[in-house]
């Protein structure tokens, strides 16, 4: 947001003056991620994951475009061309492991980013649009990741394509024709692989576009902060550059260390061995599991085992799995509490941590085989998941008595005599 005290862009060089007059790109950048964007001074490290997510998107697009130069999107060559990348292309192994683990890193970062949004109430007015666009990005990411996973055409690729498109066949009446339309056949084949390749290449750029909208809508109200109290005065904010560029910059380094450890030393730790077996439409692997970032949703899918009323179990599972994400769209209107940050919401906070544990349990169950006692536990966990969003959040937000909020961001950082300290601490 442009506050009255936000700095204005002043070109430091005649060339920049010339450029800024013709095409105010320098001004745009300055106001978006430069000295012109005033940001609350009290952001904690949870606010770094937005920048890191953008960094992951860049990694994925760069490595992905390069992999596409060497990959062959045809069922007869897909597996071998992937191995060609691993063995023969210069640095191909690094690019592919970087891309595969980059997807995992992207999801890890995004989950922490979403966690931040949940805990600190970032979805609340006036930031609903940022939240809605964020959920759209997450859905696009899931679609992109799924289609990317199909491309190596290993056993897991093939059966993922089979199972995920199978979800659509649960839709009454149109299900089966819809599935055949998605696959371009009766089972995953060349048509499927080719369209997934095409869409897997396209969607990241759609994501990039929605990310730009996400950031644009962020700049209308400006960044939220851990207290959830709005910015009141100049002492509440600092310019994005250099303060948050420096903070984001060093955490990019930290991220790269962790990410590189995976790429160079545990490149297959997050993958599944069966995907190194070429696709075989005649034989399903004993245990098919999605990548870890889909486990909680997979557990929700599998927890509906019995037909209920007029709904058959398969349809219920699919509905629930999609609903598990769709409920996020309604969150800004389900949570009516005027207080954003869970720090000041003692009752909500307890339920929220319960949800975090619940999702971790669902994650574990999504990996486990579909047998007892895992199914029973996932039924209970799924129950809590929906009760939390659809019943507990609306009720708690109307009956809860929040803790007192700090007067301002500056007060929360420096104490109530903060303004006095601020003038004396300059060295």
């Amino acid at each position, binding site marked *: 947001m442009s506050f009255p005290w936000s700095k204005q862009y002043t070109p430091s060089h005649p060339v920049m003056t010339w450029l800024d007059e013709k095409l105010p790109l320098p001004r745009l950048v300055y106001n978006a*991620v430069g000295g012109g964007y005033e940001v609350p001074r009290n952001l904690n490290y949870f606010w770094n994951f937005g*920048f890191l997510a953008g*960094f992951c998107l860049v990694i994925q697009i*760069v490595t992905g475009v*390069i992999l596409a*130069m*060497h990959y062959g999107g045809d069922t007869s060559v897909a597996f071998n061309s992937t191995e*060609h990348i691993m*063995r*023969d*292309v*210069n*640095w*191909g192994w*690094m*690019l592919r492991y970087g891309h595969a683990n980059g997807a995992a890193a992207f999801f890890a970062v995004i989950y922490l980013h979403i966690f931040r949004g949940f805990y600190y109430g970032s979805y609340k007015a006036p930031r609903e649009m940022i939240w809605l666009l964020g959920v759209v990005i997450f859905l696009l990411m899931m679609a992109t990741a799924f289609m990317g996973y199909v491309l190596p055409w290993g056993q897991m690729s093939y059966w993922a394509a089979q199972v995920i498109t199978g979800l659509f066949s649960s839709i009454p009446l149109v299900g089966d024709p819809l599935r055949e339309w998605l696959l371009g056949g009766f089972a995953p084949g060349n048509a499927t692989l080719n369209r997934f390749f095409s869409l897997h290449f396209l969607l990241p750029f759609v994501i990039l576009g929605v990310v730009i909208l996400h950031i644009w809508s962020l700049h209308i109200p400006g960044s939220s902060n851990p207290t959830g109290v709005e910015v009141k005065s100049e002492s509440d904010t600092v310019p994005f*550059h*250099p303060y948050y*560029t*420096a903070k*984001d*910059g*060093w955490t*990019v*380094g930290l991220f*790269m260390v962790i990410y590189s450890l995976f790429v160079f030393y545990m490149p297959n730790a997050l993958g599944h061995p069966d995907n190194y077996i070429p696709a075989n439409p005649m034989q399903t692997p004993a245990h098919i599991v999605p990548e870890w970032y889909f486990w909680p949703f997979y557990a929700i899918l599998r927890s509906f085992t019995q037909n209920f009323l007029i709904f058959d179990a398969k349809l219920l599972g699919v509905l629930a799995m999609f609903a598990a994400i769709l409920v996020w769209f309604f969150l800004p209107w389900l949570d009516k509490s005027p207080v954003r940050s869970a720090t000041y919401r003692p009752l909500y906070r307890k339920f929220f941590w319960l949800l975090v544990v619940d999702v971790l349990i669902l994650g574990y169950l999504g990996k486990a085989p579909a047998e007892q006692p895992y199914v029973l536990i996932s039924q209970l966990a799924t129950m809590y998941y929906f009760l939390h969003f659809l019943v507990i959040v609306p009720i708690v937000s109307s009956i809860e008595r929040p803790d007192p909020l700090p007067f301002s961001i500056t007060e929360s950082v420096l104490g109530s005599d903060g303004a006095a300290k601020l003038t004396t601490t*300059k*060295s």
Partner: protein
Amino acid sequence: MAQEAAIDTPAAQSGEGVRRRDFINIAAVSAAGVGGVAVVYPLISQMAPSADVLAESSTEVDISAVQPGQAIKAVFRKQPVFIRSLTPAEVEAANKVDAASLRDPQTLAERTKEGHENLLITMGVCTHLGCVPQGAGAGEVKGEFGGYFCPCHGSHYDTAARIRKGPAPKNLQVPEYEINGTVVKIG
């Protein structure tokens, strides 16, 4: 990577600690720059020929069946190679020409191996724009100088595959090769 500058923070404007602080900021930005450059290297080198392509970069050909006056084609790096056994008349025709007068001055001896002056091995790739000249296959047009003729833009090569007429700038390239008995190893 996105932390360039910060050199002009208020803290860095006066006093003794300033230099050290400036230095840290510059060092951090430089390190990010070095890291960025290091990443660019594999991103660029991945486009160079891969190991399997490079592995095809030598070819062995058995030439025992090539009779004088005949030529065979071989494949080297996915491109044609002409291996031609010259007749004495063709050798003579090539040697009669004053090499200095040619566009790309070379004698036949310079273009063949010692002791094998009648064995002319050249790439079958016109030095103009890369078409395959005619003249190696049986019954193909050999051009005005009895060697090769490129139909794309009308370059004529003589019996030593030297450019004599037309737009090509150079003689047909002689690849690196060695002869072991009846086997020629190209590349």
